[in-house]
């Protein structure tokens, strides 16, 4: 705790120096050295810096890599998901970083994931399913905060795209659905 408090003012000074510079790499390196909570406070204190979203974005893509298997995660889709999640959840960036620390970015199966999340903060433990819902169903968040980020290009639709079309897009000319699906 003490260490963080001492680190905090030093980082503040360092961040101000790089505030208007394009040295995102420098900022990212600094951030990665901090705990996620400290990162969140910083984000709250310095919106101009944190909303660059690069650190959150790269953590998000890294942790998503552990979860989504073979699917191609585009930067556009990832950015859109992060923006949607963060819109209604100020702690999102912190949770993502925490999750990344717990599960890493190599693919994990269901059992491994469960084991790695044992004892984790319940918000963080709920995140993998939320992230998967984001990529696979294109929906970020839940309840009244849910936001649709993608539909036709979500991973669930892509997974079956050789046989089906997303609802509201035509299967084919009239009668084409009578043939046995190949």
């Amino acid at each position, binding site marked *: 705790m003490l260490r963080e408090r001492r680190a905090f003012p030093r980082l503040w000074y360092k961040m101000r120096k790089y505030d208007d510079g394009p040295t995102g790499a420098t900022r990212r390196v600094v951030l990665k050295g901090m705990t996620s909570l400290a990162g969140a406070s910083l984000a709250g204190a310095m919106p101009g810096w944190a909303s660059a979203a690069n650190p959150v974005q790269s953590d998000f893509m890294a942790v998503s890599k*552990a*979860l*989504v*298997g*073979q*699917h191609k995660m585009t930067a556009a889709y990832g950015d859109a998901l992060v923006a949607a999640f963060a819109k209604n959840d100020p702690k999102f960036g912190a949770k993502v970083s925490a999750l990344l620390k717990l599960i890493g970015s190599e*693919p*994990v*199966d*269901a059992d491994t*994931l*469960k084991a790695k999340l044992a004892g984790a903060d319940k918000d963080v433990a709920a995140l*993998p*399913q939320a992230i*998967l*819902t984001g990529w*696979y*169903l294109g*929906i970020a*968040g*839940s*309840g*009244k905060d*849910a*936001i*649709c980020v993608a*539909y*036709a290009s979500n*991973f*669930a*639709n892509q*997974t*079956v795209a050789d*046989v*089906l*079309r*997303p*609802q*509201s*897009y*035509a*299967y*084919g*000319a*009239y*009668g*084409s*659905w*009578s*043939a*046995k*699906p190949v």
Partner: protein
Amino acid sequence: MADTLSADVIVVGAGLVAALTARKLALAGKSVVMLEAGPMIERDQIVQNFRRSAWKGDDDKPYPNSKFAPFPDYTPEDNGYLEQLGPYPYPAMYLRVVGGTTWHWAAQAWRLVPNAFRLKSAYDVGRDWPISYEDLEPFYHEAEVLWGVSGPDEMAQYSPRSKPFPMPPVAQSFLSQTVVNRLKPQFEVLTNTTGRNSQPYDGRPQCCGNNNCMPICPIDAQYTGGSAVVQAQAAGVKVIPQAVVYKLDHDAQGKITAVHYYDWNKQSHKAVAETYVLGANALEIPKILFMSASDKFPNGLANNYDQVGRNLMDHPSSKCTFLADEPIWAGRGPQSPISIQQMRDGDFRKDHSAFRLDFSNGSQVTAVTEQGIKQGLTGDALDRFIRERAARQMSMKNVLEQLPDPDNRVMLSKTKKDALGLPTPAIAYSINDYVERGMDATHEVYQQIVELMGATEVRYSPKGKYSNNQHICGTLAMGDDEKTSVTDSTGRAHAHENLYMVSTGVMPTVATANSTLTASALGLRTAAAILGQV
């Protein structure tokens, strides 16, 4: 205060049945105005709203809800428009927009079977209609031609026909063919009779398998209230949207003399006509009748014998989901393609509910994806799960007939009001043994089907829990006896000589077919009566 609007006929509500009725009157030379509480909507905007929706499982979400013409909404939470008095919830779903609720339906178009009109005489349950199937048959056909109905010839054995269907049945998907063949000969599974184009019809294209009938057909291959309003306008009917009717005036004899409505700026307007037709759905019409209570009619209009709003019936449904033993890939073609008609009539109706059994062809992709994620699957395992299950999962449901029960009713809420200060509907509802025994009979059929399909992972809806189908009937029941009905056999209010009702609400029993075609036929018959032809 604007000038008083005046026309030969004022129709309250611009849904499918109201629009067909209005059109017929306009073609006969009447000036007709339709007052609709909700806004005009554009199909293409609704399609976009659906694709952007974060709650794609909710059919109402793509449609604009509003505080001046609010309608029930349950996702992500209940908006509280309907007050539920119990004991059983009745979460009705309907729209208040130009075109009405049939913007989001599957256009099922079965006629009733003849015995549905004489349930009491034949089986000593429920009640008889004041008309017979034969009385309604020509109007059924008239409605079918206006809709553009496609159906199989075999349906004639259930509902006799004087003329063939306007169009042949919609082509069966591989899923449908599989079910049809696997269930033979024990069960006859027929292509559904629908207002869905198997050929170009009335300037609208044939179906191209969007699998999105509910909540919106993107290409109007399916007939909807939106199509009906277009037909009505082409006949000269004037539609005024954002006109929330809240009161009817009457004279000393009970003849209706004016209708009052709010626009969305909360300004009140008045409209007068010779004839008034209420077509605003079976919950909203009673609301208007109750709100029109006066010294002469303290319990509301058309309600001298406390019948308005009572005998509320719907079709309780219970689902069964399973994995077929081969890939059938639900999601190719229309959402509700086939069903079993055999259990819609028979002696058993003395004891338990008749029912129809419907098979769903709706895409399972979202459902299985949610299931896989919930089970904790990730990556390739999740992908395999999705593919495997989207290929084999399908569901079926029953559509049970509920008997009229006067305690099942819609009233005005004593506590809730909308932004115009109008009370919202309050509903008391229950489901009785007749239905439960029908569910038991269905369960036996489910088990036979499950075996014939080689099904695994069979899941049933929880026992005693039913979904409703938005086939709202009974609240304005027609009958010969004014003490036990609201309207006569032509849909005219017993108590008011120039007040008519066109709605599923006038049906005295709910039977086992989706109600809109029957309501359309009744509405066309009402129009004929207004024109002195019945």
